[in-house]
């Protein structure tokens, strides 16, 4: 059983479309992070959500943490080819120690011009 389940696994859309990807779990987390990874590069932090129900916006990206802090979503408005990449959610495993991160398997997004 995966701690974090991301869906969909692959998503191919046209430029200008909207999309939502999900990160789900049966566990409760103190916080959750979203990263974006481009081919041949390391993950780059996009946002951290901490409070249940929290919504954060980063330009055309909207991140939401579920009320029960078990899940999160990432919505992209008017996707552009530059949004192409692997979107990863990750959670810290030990509260207040900032230990290792557990990653989901990612959503591979392809935005075609």
């Amino acid at each position: 059983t995966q701690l974090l389940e991301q869906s969909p696994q692959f998503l191919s859309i046209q430029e200008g479309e909207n999309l939502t990807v999900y990160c789900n779990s049966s566990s409760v987390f103190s916080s959750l992070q979203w990263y974006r990874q481009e081919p041949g590069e390391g993950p780059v932090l996009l946002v951290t959500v901490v409070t249940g129900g929290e919504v954060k916006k980063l330009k055309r990206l909207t991140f939401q943490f579920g009320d029960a802090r078990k899940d999160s979503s990432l919505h992209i408005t008017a996707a552009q080819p530059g949004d192409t990449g692997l979107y990863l959610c990750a959670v810290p495993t030990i509260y207040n120690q900032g230990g290792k991160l557990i990653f989901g398997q990612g959503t591979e997004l392809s935005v075609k011009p």
Partner: protein
Amino acid sequence: EPEVTQTPSHQVTQMGQEVILRCVPISNHLYFYWYRQILGQKVEFLVSFYNNEISEKSEIFDDQFSVERPDGSNFTLKIRSTKLEDSAMYFCASRPPGHSNTGELFFGEGSRLTVL
């Protein structure tokens, strides 16, 4: 903007050879990590390092692996006798002070290890 740097970007080695992957974390960071990503699979935790010692390691991090911070800037991962299944992207990461509750990491661009 400060960044984590890793060398080499790609290393090809023969099975059984020793490999050292090098990382220079961001200068004021205190926690250092190695992760790996086998092609098409998840990013997996290997080891965390704080105050000159390992603070946590995964099952993957067996006796063939070791980490060291030989001076104030470098952080290295050594694989003593490489196996085919060690082929992966290896990412170094560091964490800024004051982020212990949320654990955000800054990753390097990775070192691709190919074991033949």
